[in-house]
């Protein structure tokens, strides 16, 4: 499956230090749109989720706006994430080393990379984040439409809506937790954020965290 590990636009620039292209401009824009939507959705959603957070509706210009804008942001996120999905799904397919990586989670958290197998473009953790996001977003958009009363009130029973609203809440909590993991990982693992800002990481970063991917890039470069 290793072939999937290299995505369009990935490449190596020798030098000191080595620079490695990880995300194309398109991918980065797509990601940040999605990220913004997710944050806005979290804020507007949480405002209606727990009274202590209702003040957040202020950010959107009041409860009424929050109520109608939330689902529309959801729609944007859905399509935006669809874009990411198309870009990333292959590289996120499960690989043999991912199992080992998972098994050695303690070393992962301890930052003892040397004890981990060489990893492709994404490690198991990132793949879990990717797939949970995908699934949760589908759940949220589906349940969201069921309770989007302004347009869809007539299409389901109150009883269905009750379940939908519960599922929507649970899904939202889950996706926010996943998001926290995602963001924290990016911060903890220094040198990561550059991947989504400048699109590049240092060779050392790639060597340390995604050596298999780096080797393939280099090898690929040899082929080229």
């Amino acid at each position, binding site marked *: 499956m290793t072939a999937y590990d290299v995505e369009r636009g990935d490449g190596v620039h020798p030098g000191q*230090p080595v620079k490695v292209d990880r995300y194309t401009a398109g991918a980065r824009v797509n990601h940040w749109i999605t990220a913004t939507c997710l944050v806005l959705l979290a804020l507007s959603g949480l405002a209606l989720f727990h009274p202590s957070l209702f003040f957040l509706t202020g950010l959107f210009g009041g409860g009424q706006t929050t109520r109608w804008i939330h689902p529309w942001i959801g729609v944007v996120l859905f399509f935006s994430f669809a874009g990411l999905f198309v870009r990333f799904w292959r590289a996120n397919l499960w690989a043999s080393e991912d199992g080992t990586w998972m098994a050695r989670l303690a070393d992962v958290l301890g930052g003892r990379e040397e004890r981990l197998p060489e990893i492709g473009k994404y490690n198991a953790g990132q793949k879990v984040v990717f797939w949970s996001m995908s699934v949760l977003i589908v759940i949220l958009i589906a349940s969201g439409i069921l309770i989007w009363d302004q347009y869809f009130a007539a299409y389901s029973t*109150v009883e269905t809506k009750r379940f939908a*609203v*519960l599922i929507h809440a649970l899904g939202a909590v889950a996706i926010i937790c996943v998001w926290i993991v995602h963001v924290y990982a990016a911060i903890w*693992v*220094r040198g990561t954020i550059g991947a989504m800002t400048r699109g590049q990481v240092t060779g*050392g970063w790639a060597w340390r965290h995604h050596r298999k991917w780096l080797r393939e890039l280099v090898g690929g470069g040899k082929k080229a």
Partner: protein
Amino acid sequence: MVSFILPPAPTTDVKTTYGQEDLIKRSASNISPPARQLTPVAKLIDVSKCIGCKACEVACLEWNDMRTPVGVNTGVYDNPHDLTPDMFTTMRFTEWVNPESKNLEWLIRKDGCMHCADPGCLKACPAPGAIVQYSNGIVDFDHDKCIGCGYCVKGCPFNIPRISQVDNKAYKCTLCSDRVAVGQGPACAKACPTQAIVFGTKDEMKKHAEGRIKDLQSRGFKNAGLYDPPGVGGTHVMYVLHHNDQPQIYANLPNNPRISPVVELWKGATKYAGLAAMAAFAAIGVIHHLVTGPNKVSEEEERKAEELAGKGKTS
């Protein structure tokens, strides 16, 4: 002569002003119990006396300055067909053949907000103060605060609130809190020609109901009784039913209404567990960082990368 038709004039207690300090419940808010407890009120609808004339509907429309569109006949007397944001109450007609007597009974139930002691709408509402309950039991919507999310619809065990397509706000019977505020009964109760609808303190209404139930039992309705469902802590709109053993024959009046467990779960455990979970994840992150410190790339690793890249280039 004690009139069963109309309740005795209520005994008035402490006069009070009407405001936030009279709220016992406020949506999406924690409030301290009110200093004064108002006399709990109730509207009693004696279905056995209702002639389905719809005077209450018209009086309600006029008092609330509402108009409901002229519809069509669909083969029944139920016009308007359902509650709407502009129709707080409607008659539901049922032609029921009593299996015992074989006689036709025309059951006519005035549908509308039941003003539950434990209001599902209020429990579900996310907008602080958009739904309030006064200590006299009236559950009222404050449209300035309503955000139109429709959670009240999901919270209500009687399917009462309706969201307006015009201003995206929730509407339902207010028990004419503005009339009650100045010592009058609701417009529907005032209009009701046979006084099948009466209004007073909840205690008086219960007494009044006892008299009506005795009368009904004396006329052969052995299951006559008062509909004041405990599942929602009792209601401030109660029915006298000639067949209290089977409320569902009155156009599906819920047998034992209660706030849906799904809603309870959503507005209960989920709310707190959810926040906890998110907090926990964030906290773990922070702690982890303190313990393990940042995951940095070492010089050596950079060099190894250069070597690798270099190999690739020079070969």
